[in-house]
């Protein structure tokens, strides 16, 4: 209130008003405005906006009480104090007067000291009320903004995370978080070859700070599963990113699994989660999945261990996973639900064990407030119909391309000469899904070219372990002395009707392949490379002069 304080004096008798005016001028440096009846008082209030009103009660027409009531109706949240100046001396009549909305009174004849104290107090209250209202408005605006931001974050999370494949025949789950944002993680998706990938995990803490971690995990999981990555690789990548992104005291305990129902095989990488359980089709517990590793986000990539465990899961069998919110839930007496009770309930529950756990948990906990996010997952091992390969629809639209890569003697001397070649091929989407097979094919072709065509090494040497080491030592020496050698690869992507192929042509600086299509028996330590190539490829051929070797691989 940087403006001057303004007082409104209301009294029908001019000399009274004059007396008060002079008194106030002697005490304060305020602006004074006046009104001579109740009606004028209300008008003055509206036009002059006084900070305080001194109101006479007994006035003709609209009296002080009526005027007070009218004025108070207009003040709303603001505090404009009205002090009655009254000759009334009975308590009852004073109470009645004050009930019209007045805030205080001073009896005539006035004691100046008392008048001054009351004016000071009420002006102070007015100031405090103004500050309070201003702060409330600020908070209210802030809160609205916060709610809008929260809605935006929720929207963002929904889009990033809700890509899970949640067919009830395959995945049954229950998730309940203790706040809007869930610090537990559960994603499910089918891989390109039809297996089901699942990740169930739990970030340290809960609420938004924990949920922040779920975003990078979602992105990595869905991207890698789409490409058919191995469970260990997914674990490694998540660890790498979380190690980079999260503060030192935040981490993710998680189980990452791939269920291949066709091969009845479950591959698991797990750390820090309660034990998982595998049941067969006859409702018997066949395996327990124990945590093997350190949580994700703590260990540097070089020390990271991506070793997985492999289990057999029958068709019709089931796998159960939960976050520690389940086993650590407490009842009224502070007792935990516990691993034992969880396992026993699963074992005794038969076909309906999933619902039984949830019911038992609810009963156990009764009214105790949930203190951690809870996640429970049941996976069914069912043979699903084969998914069409993701690229089929795009085949006829796909562009044909070809890439040539030439390896020189310098390249051949490098530690892992064809890894850069793989990097290039792996970046091509139509090829990435087949990278494991292509990795083997191209290694065999490269080694074949280098060892037999260029270096003329006799593979028969590789027949005992000492000789094998000798062979590779000799190979290394010869590579060191290579000059003017080359291996040229040409990769082309072709489509024929509805099929796509990768054609690989290899030409090298060596003696070439003259009539080398020989059958090799299992006893020799050579030639298996050619077997592998022949088996994977639709066609394999040599050019007329033996200098170019071509294979055709169906994608």
């Amino acid at each position: 209130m940087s403006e001057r304080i303004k007082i409104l004096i209301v009294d029908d008798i001019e000399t009274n008003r004059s007396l008060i005016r002079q008194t106030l001028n002697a005490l304060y440096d305020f602006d004074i405005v006046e009104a001579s009846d109740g009606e004028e008082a209300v008008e003055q209030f509206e036009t002059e906006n006084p900070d305080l009103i001194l109101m006479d009660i007994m006035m003709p027409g609209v009296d002080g009480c009526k005027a007070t009531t009218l004025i108070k109706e207009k003040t709303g949240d603001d505090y404009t104090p009205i002090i009655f100046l009254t000759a009334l001396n009975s308590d009852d009549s004073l109470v009645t007067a004050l009930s019209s909305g007045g805030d205080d009174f001073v009896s005539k004849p006035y004691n100046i000291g008392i008048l001054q104290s009351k004016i000071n107090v009420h002006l102070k209250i007015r100031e405090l009320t103004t500050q309070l209202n201003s702060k409330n408005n600020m908070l209210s605006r802030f809160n609205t903004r916060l709610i809008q931001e929260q809605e935006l974050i929720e929207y963002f999370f929904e889009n990033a995370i809700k890509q899970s494949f949640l067919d009830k025949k395959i995945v049954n789950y229950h998730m309940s978080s203790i706040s809007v944002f869930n610090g537990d993680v559960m994603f499910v998706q089918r891989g390109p070859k039809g297996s089901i990938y699942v990740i169930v995990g739990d970030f340290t803490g809960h609420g938004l700070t924990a949920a922040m971690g779920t975003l990078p995990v979602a992105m990595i999981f869905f991207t890698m599963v789409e490409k058919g990555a191995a469970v260990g690789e997914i674990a490694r990548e998540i660890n790498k990113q979380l190690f980079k992104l999260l503060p030192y005291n935040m981490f993710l305990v998680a189980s990452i699994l791939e269920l291949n129902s066709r091969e009845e095989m479950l591959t698991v990488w797990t750390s820090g989660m309660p034990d998982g359980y595998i049941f067969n089709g006859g409702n018997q517990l066949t395996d327990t999945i124990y945590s093997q590793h350190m949580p994700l986000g703590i260990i540097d990539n070089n020390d990271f261990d991506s070793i997985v465990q492999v289990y057999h899961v029958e068709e019709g069998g089931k796998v159960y996973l939960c976050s520690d919110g389940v086993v650590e839930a407490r009842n009224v007496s502070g007792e935990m639900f516990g691993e034992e009770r969880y396992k026993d309930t699963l074992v005794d529950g038969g076909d309906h064990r999933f619902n039984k756990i949830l019911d038992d948990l609810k009963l156990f906990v009764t009214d105790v407030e949930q203190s951690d996010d809870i996640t429970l997952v049941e996976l069914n091992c069912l043979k699903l119909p084969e998914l069409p390969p993701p690229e089929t629809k795009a085949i006829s639209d796909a562009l044909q391309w070809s890439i040539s890569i030439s390896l020189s003697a310098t390249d051949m001397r490098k530690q892992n000469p064809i890894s850069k070649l793989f990097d290039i091929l792996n970046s091509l989407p139509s090829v990435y899904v087949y990278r494991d097979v292509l990795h083997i094919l191209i290694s065999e072709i490269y080694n074949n070219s280098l060892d037999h065509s260029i270096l003329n090494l006799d593979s028969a040497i590789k027949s005992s372990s000492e000789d094998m080491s000798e062979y590779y030592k000799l190979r290394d020496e010869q590579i060191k002395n290579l000059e003017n050698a080359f291996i040229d690869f040409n990769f082309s992507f072709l489509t024929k009707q509805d099929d796509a192929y990768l054609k690989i042509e290899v030409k090298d600086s060596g003696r070439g392949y003259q009539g080398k299509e020989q059958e090799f028996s299992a006893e020799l330590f050579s030639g298996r490379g050619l077997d592998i190539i022949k088996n994977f490829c639709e066609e394999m051929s040599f050019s007329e002069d033996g200098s170019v070797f071509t294979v055709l691989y169906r994608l």
Partner: protein
Amino acid sequence: MGVHTNISDDKSTVTIFIEGDFNFSLLSDFKNSYNNNDVVTAKKIIIDLSGTLTIDSSALGMLLVLQRDMEKTGKAINVVNCNSLVRRIFAMTNLDRMFNVE
């Protein structure tokens, strides 16, 4: 990445784990994993390929060499936990029976 070995408590079984790509770059590590006293006393050798991504002909060669050496002392070799690609490679080179691939 690489070769890890695990010996059972009663020393009768040695398990060799191969992680990553199984090829001739692992030759010396692989040799060291079975050229030692623990293997001499064991009766059974298990090659666990659960962490193996790919396998090439040089790795098959290494396994054959191992098998020939172990045959001399009457030890059995089992290859376990192959992914489907690795298993296919054993099958197409007719080595699956030789190594009792599971």
